[in-house]
């Protein structure tokens, strides 16, 4: 505890809430602290959608922060999140991204301990000469608390985390809009390593300022997003983002591509986009006709795995599914026409963060509270307020942007 508070003191966070010390992207001790204080703290981490594990025994592997986890639908139909480590000697139980565990349950290769899909230890090899007080029921796999909303699966390792609906607060309304009744069909995911700190990836989504500057494609086709806003619902508490915008051609869409279906909206009455961050690391969006969840997994100080998971609705006719399959990764994926640039920009921020100093947030900051305009970067402040609260950094008061200089 003393080491932690020493660390928090050595990182000099300015009084102004729009200045971010670059050291938080380069300090390895802080990274370890974050994995505890944030990812096993009182937050709900988005780990998947029920459509990814539709039948009993289906599982996928992921991480909650840096804790390896198995998201599994039990033989009883209940989705659970188990730590991917044997209770005996810590061996990883499941390798590979996904599968079905079948009737045998999870069997550890090391000493053949076997668990059912609820994580209960069901068999131990050669238990003779174990201590007399050994009881199988004492050796289940640790698991997270799990709650779902519209099929989205959230995990938490903290008893202090409020119920999911309370945590999501107003965000439930946005999730309702994107996911409807939650009856989705999993189309597949694409996973890519961004060579940047996890916070830089997440704060980028709060930033409406970079969208037209960095994502040149919008300019090339003359697609302007307008009329939207960037909300930080319940910003005093949890720092989620709910961004709404509408894309409309400036005059008409410049047909620079022979196939303009990348930018078409066929499944919605309007071109309203929703882009949400469930603090700290989940993304929910419907951009054009692309329904997407993103799971942000910190690998290391300067490497972050982003899983882009794509969905259709169960009611989609085949031609709509095909449209979604053609549009999704072509726009919002690592090879997407308006996504790839983020990786390039964020890697550059990360690589120069060693220069120390502070990153500055300006656009929209004269507005002290949400809602902001969709082109503002000011919501980034609320992400870091929530972050600082969890870490125990001092929180500047709201509207401190005009406070006197560093002290």
């Amino acid at each position, binding site marked *: 505890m003393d080491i932690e508070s020493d660390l928090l003191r050595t990182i000099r966070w300015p009084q102004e809430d729009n200045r971010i010390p670059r050291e938080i992207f380069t300090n390895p001790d802080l990274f370890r602290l974050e994995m505890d204080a944030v990812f096993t703290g009182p937050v709900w981490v988005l780990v998947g959608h029920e459509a990814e594990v539709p039948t009993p025994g289906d599982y996928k592997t992921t991480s909650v922060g840096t804790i390896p986890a198995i998201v599994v639908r039990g033989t009883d139909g209940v989705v659970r999140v188990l730590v991917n480590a044997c209770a005996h000697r810590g061996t990883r139980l499941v390798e*590979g991204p996904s599968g079905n565990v079948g009737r045998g349950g999870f069997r550890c290769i090391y000493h053949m301990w076997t668990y059912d899909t609820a994580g209960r230890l069901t068999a131990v090899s050669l238990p003779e000469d174990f201590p007399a007080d050994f009881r199988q029921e004492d050796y289940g796999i640790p698991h997270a608390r799990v709650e779902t909303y519209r099929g989205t699966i959230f995990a938490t390792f903290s008893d202090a985390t409020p119920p999911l609906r309370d945590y999501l607060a107003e965000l439930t309304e946005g999730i309702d809009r994107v996911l409807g009744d939650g009856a989705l069909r999993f189309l597949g995911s694409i996973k890519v*390593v961004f060579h940047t700190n996890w916070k830089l990836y997440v704060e980028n989504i709060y930033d409406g300022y970079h969208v037209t500057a960095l994502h040149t494609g919008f300019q090339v086709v003359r697609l302007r997003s307008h009329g939207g806003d960037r909300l930080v619902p319940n910003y005093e508490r949890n720092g989620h983002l709910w961004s709404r915008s509408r894309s409309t051609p400036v005059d008409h869409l410049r047909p620079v591509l*022979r196939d303009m279906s990348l930018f078409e909206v066929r499944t919605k009455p309007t071109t309203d986009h929703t882009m949400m961050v469930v603090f700290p690391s989940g993304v929910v969006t419907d951009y054009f006709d692309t329904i997407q969840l993103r799971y942000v997994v910190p690998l290391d100080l300067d490497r972050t795995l982003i899983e882009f998971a794509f969905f259709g609705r169960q009611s989609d006719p085949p031609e709509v599914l095909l449209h979604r*399959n053609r549009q999704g*990764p072509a726009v919002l994926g*690592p090879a997407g026409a308006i996504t790839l640039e983020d990786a*390039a920009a964020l890697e550059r921020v990360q690589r120069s963060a060693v220069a120390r100093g502070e990153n500055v947030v300006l656009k929209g900051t004269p507005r002290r509270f949400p809602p902001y305009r969709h082109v503002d970067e000011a919501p980034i402040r609320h992400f870091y307020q929530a972050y600082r609260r969890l870490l125990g950094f001092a929180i500047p008061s709201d509207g401190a942007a005009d406070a006197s200089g560093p002290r």
Partner: protein
Amino acid sequence: MPAGPADGAGRRQAALDLLARYVRVVDDPRRIEEWPDLFAEEATYLVVTRENHERGLPIAVVRDDTRDRIRDRVVIVREFWGAGGRTEDRHYNEAWPRHIVGPAWVDLKESDEAHLGANFMVWGSGAIDGQMRVLAVGEYRDVVVFPDGAARFKAKIVILDHPVLQDVFVYPL
């Protein structure tokens, strides 16, 4: 009798030459405009992870399933990711790609198509930090046709062995 190299040995060599030309084009960022010419009028360029491929999941990293989409990729590389051609403003196109392609095998089909396979690895060098980075490892499972005497890809199927991409990539794999 279809046009093109009539005998099997001629087609085999034409398919191998097409692969060599492909590698020369995709490894030279100055030649990306030549890339669509390597495809037939009805053609597909698909990049998919082995995970999704074997699970039968339709999401591909790249799904250019028409010649139009293949030609659009040049526009995306040059205009979208190239700041409207102002390359001095955009430097992430400068990760010089380098394909290392293993021995290729050709399987001539009765249908006047040839199946072409090869293992590959792609490195990117010098992007931001001057280092090199492995961008992709996998195999090609291509279909080659011979319209008008010249070999062209009817399908360029790129299967990535790794479920996690280690970086984004700009130029075709």
